[in-house]
């Protein structure tokens, strides 16, 4: 496919790997923020091809994985209400909350439907006017504009039975929270490509300025990631960290203005509950008061039991980059994609699922 196959060329990859080996002289610790990057790296075996000086850690950029148990419990409680249809991206189905999962709720007669798009959720609302249709709105800045668009469309077309459980999260604030924790001593960050399509490169400027950490926005094909690593290593070797865009065919510095305006129309910034990080101020999106009739948390009254975490699961540590799946006693034993204990094994771009599917037994 155009814009994909060219960026998987093996000969060009050899060029870039050779170049990285040539310029990398000191131990360099990079984090690929995005779960999509982790999957691409694992699938193509890039970690093994990089010189021993370059270490790559996986970050928290998997929306399903960072959704806190408290929020999953809310979604399950909403599913238990009468005359409610829950619509959700497929990855959320199997994620265990404190006591159950949406999949189990469905087995227990709740109406839970997998959708590909908020457009599909809107259609289900149109087709079921006597039901309340709630979309489980997880995701980062990539997905938030599509949720905003669905709310605006519901308003303009008078679709009164559509609601969103708004769990949208923001990437630059969680990067700041990670850097403030100081657990990792990062030299550079491979910044998320499709988040940056929306927000552009400017929201990352504080990272090199205040933390001295290099930033390169990367696409998702192996060559995109190798080029980003090369650019990061070059910045780090010259001691001049900055924000650069390697994914220029997709990202411009200003981002997508139409999407940003739409997000600002519907959402305001609020705190968000992150697995592994807890509640982080100003790291999420909330539905503005003007549109609160679409807000499932305001429209429905639910109660949830006290939050419980799965015993032995280290998803939180993995999401902060301080541990890897192989450090987990449950990995490949009690926790598998068929019987996941934590969300990092459920999501197709979770670190544990990526290690399970593509990792060696190292």
């Amino acid at each position, binding site marked *: 496919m155009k814009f994909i196959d060219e960026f998987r060329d093996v000969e060009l990859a050899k060029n870039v790997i050779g170049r990285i080996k040539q310029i990398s002289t000191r131990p360099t610790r990079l984090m690929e923020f995005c779960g999509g990057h982790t999957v691409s790296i694992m699938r193509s075996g890039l970690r093994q091809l990089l010189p021993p000086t370059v270490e790559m850690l996986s970050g928290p950029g998997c929306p399903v994985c960072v959704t806190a148990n408290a929020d999953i419990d809310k979604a399950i409680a909403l599913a238990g209400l009468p005359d409610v249809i829950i619509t959700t991206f497929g990855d959320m189905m199997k994620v265990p909350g404190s006591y159950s999962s949406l999949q189990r709720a469905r087995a227990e007669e709740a109406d839970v439907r997998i959708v590909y798009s908020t457009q599909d959720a809107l259609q289900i609302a149109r087709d079921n006017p006597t039901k309340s249709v709630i979309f489980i709105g997880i995701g980062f800045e990539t997905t938030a504009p599509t949720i905003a668009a669905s709310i605006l469309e519901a308003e303009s077309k008078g679709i009164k039975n559509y609601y969103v459980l708004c769990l949208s999260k923001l990437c630059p604030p969680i990067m700041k929270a990670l850097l403030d924790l100081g657990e990792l001593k990062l030299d550079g960050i491979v910044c998320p490509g499709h988040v940056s399509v929306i927000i552009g490169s400017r929201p990352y400027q504080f990272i090199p300025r205040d933390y001295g950490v290099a930033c390169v926005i990367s696409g998702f094909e192996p060559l995109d990631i190798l080029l980003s690593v090369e650019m990061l290593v070059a910045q780090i070797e010259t001691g001049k960290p900055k924000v650069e865009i390697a994914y220029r065919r997709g990202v411009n510095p200003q981002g997508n203005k*139409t999407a940003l305006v739409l997000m600002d129309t519907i959402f305001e910034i609020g705190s968000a509950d992150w697995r592994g990080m807890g509640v982080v101020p100003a790291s999420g999106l909330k539905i503005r008061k003007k549109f609160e009739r679409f807000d499932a948390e305001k429209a429905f009254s639910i109660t949830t039991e006290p939050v419980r975490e799965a015993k032995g699961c280290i998803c939180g540590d993995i999401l902060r980059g301080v541990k890897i799946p192989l450090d987990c006693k449950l990995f490949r034993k009690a926790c598998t994609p068929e019987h996941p204990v934590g969300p990092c094994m459920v999501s197709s771009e979770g670190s544990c699922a990526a290690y399970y599917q593509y990792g060696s037994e190292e």
Partner: protein
Amino acid sequence: MCLAVPVKVVSIDGKEAEVEIGGVKRRVSIVLTPEAKVGDYVLLHTGYAINVINEAEAQETLKILEEMASLE
């Protein structure tokens, strides 16, 4: 989850476009990319085009990657 794939715009009808993905056609929303034109490639994320791919920049990136061989 932030997965987005390049697809070609075949036709446009108001705020929707028909796009081609590996020979299969489907309708997507272009409310986030009102500038999209027939023949453009857009990045498709959960049923929405989230930007128009910059073809010149794609060529430029490939050129940079090719030139790295001669830097050694």
